[in-house]
């Protein structure tokens, strides 16, 4: 499904307007969930998006990132200590003006760490840009014959079977709750990824309000919002995310 270019100003305006109100921690959490979902979704779908869609999606992600970064900044300026599980985006840190220091005064350890962290974040931001440019180049180089279905990947069912015809085997109970074996927060993580198309149905969390559209005509942004809402376990955040989804859908339908 293509994102409609006409929605972009709407999204941008929404993001800008949201920045004008004083943010709360709940806002930050909701924004963080949306951003992570968007990044994950983009990563999964990037190769299936047409050039225009990809650009729009990237712009959307950048918008989310900026919004979260600015809200983080605002919270900090208000003297709110941000919880450790809020991951303020790198771009924000790059925009922070260097601390004004007396050159004669030596830096404390934490100041020095802060400076080095900022340097690292700046490097990460630059590297992100490099990779985005490279991805744009990849898309530009994609042969036309590859079409929308991805660059050269075989068509679905090319393994000689399709759908239910495929053989299957159990997963040794590993689809059950594996929380006791989940990676601790202290572990080196890797981003969550999509499984192959052979995966079973997506688990849909309950708590969906009644007035939510069925999502059959969602564009990428709506899909993103919906997914974030479905997967959120915090009832308050879930409610906010559904609300965002509903508003967005209303906005797109009135266009």
């Amino acid at each position, binding site marked *: 499904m293509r994102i409609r270019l006409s929605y972009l100003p709407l999204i941008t305006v929404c993001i800008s307007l949201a920045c004008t109100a004083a943010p709360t921690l709940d806002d930050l959490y909701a924004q963080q969930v949306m951003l992570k979902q968007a990044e994950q979704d983009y*990563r999964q779908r990037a*190769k299936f998006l047409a050039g225009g869609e990809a650009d729009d999606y990237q712009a959307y992600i950048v918008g989310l990132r900026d919004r979260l970064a600015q809200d983080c900044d605002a919270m900090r300026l208000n003297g709110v200590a941000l919880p*450790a599980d809020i991951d303020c985006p*790198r771009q924000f840190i790059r925009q922070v003006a260097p601390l004004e220091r007396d050159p004669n005064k030596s830096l404390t*350890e934490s100041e*020095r*760490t802060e400076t*080095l*962290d900022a*340097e*690292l974040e700046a*490097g*990460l931001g630059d*590297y*992100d840009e490099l*990779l985005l440019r*490279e*991805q744009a180049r*990849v898309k530009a180089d*994609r*042969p036309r014959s*590859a079409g929308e279905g*991805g*660059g*050269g*990947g*075989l068509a679905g069912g*090319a*393994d*000689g*079977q399709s759908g239910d*015809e*495929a*053989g*299957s*085997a159990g*997963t*040794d109970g*590993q*689809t*059950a709750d*594996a929380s006791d*074996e*989940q*990676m*601790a927060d*202290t*572990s*080196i*993580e*890797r*981003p969550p*990824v*999509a*499984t*192959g*198309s*052979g*995966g*079973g149905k997506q688990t849909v969390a309950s708590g969906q309000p009644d007035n939510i559209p069925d999502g059959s005509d969602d564009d990428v942004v709506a899909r993103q919002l919906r997914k974030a809402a479905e997967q959120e376990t915090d009832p308050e955040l879930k409610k906010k995310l559904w609300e965002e989804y509903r508003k967005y859908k209303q906005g797109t339908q009135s266009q």
Partner: protein
Amino acid sequence: MNTGNAILRVWWLAGVLLLTACSATHQNVREDTQVQRSDSEVVESQLLDVWITLFDSGELPDDEDDAKGLSIEIREAEARYMPLLLRDTLERTGYWGAVRVVPGGTEGGEVRVHGTILVSDGEHLELMITAQDATGFEWFRHSYEAEAMLEDYQRTAATGRDVFQALYNTIANDLAQHRLTLSQSEVTNIRRVAGLRFAADLAPDAFDGFLDEKDGEFSVQRLPAEGDPMVGRINAIRERDFLLVDTLNGHFDNFHAEMQDPYFQWRKTRLEELEAMREIERQARNRKLLGAAAIIGAIAIEAMGGDSTRASTGSLRNMMIVGGAYAIKTGFDKDSEATIHQDAVEELGESFAAETQPLVVEVEGETHELTGSAENQYQQWRGLLRRIYATETGLIDAAQ
């Protein structure tokens, strides 16, 4: 039995077991092998990422006839093309996390799959596949062999399915079978080891002693403390590492898309020519044999028959000799026709190699450029992480 003998026997037995364990097994792939899919979604914490290294191109056949129309340039293209088919197959099974193709020598990944092309001529495909997890444990080392007929190419032309898809399905099934033997804690351990190996590579000072390595196998000794800021930094860099691999796969996808049609056509046309050549060679051989038999028969009649027989069969013998000679001649003519097909096979190979070589050079250049920039960047980050670690732990000298 004395103790010395007993020890020797134990060592011998251990040696045999080790050799058995290390040696590769061989499978002739059934053409109707279907890929096994997970019947339910695997929870994210139990997904393992698979990195498939670009294959080794292997060696061309020693036999000149077998090697006709093949070249190392084509093999190099195949070594980049085939891992993508395996990747696409694995992605569809639902057993794995991200499945990506990576350049040779790339460190990382939770499950690593490596292949070597043993035989590939469009008619036969034989691959040696090794699978290993991040702990260094080798899952298996198998060779897979499959054969394709001209009809297979005709049948799959419209579907986009590779004629050797059954071979990739079999590899995917073997990987899935091994995955199913792993317990949840084993999967978690593999993921942790992969993460810590990445961390130790980037910040060896900060992650010293978290892993133990013995004979190429890694085990977790301890985990980072809760809230360790260094973990956050490593995760941020690791995220970029995945993005880098994704970007590389974009280039590989483009390569695949450009190579798919010409590769299919080359293999199909090559097989057509080979089959035509074999048919002509068979006819030529038969004609020569018939001709020779006729001549021999004529001579035998002459030698063994009496005067009356020789007199009465004179014209028949002449006809047999002349006919035999003609049959042999046409046999040789057929050989010339076969040579035309041989030349066609050669030309097809040269033409396909010329077509793919720029593609290989291009994707190789892009890979080098990207991994080169990444390595420079990682080197800077290594230095930065070292300074941060030194600052945080009070090692001021190192931080300066």
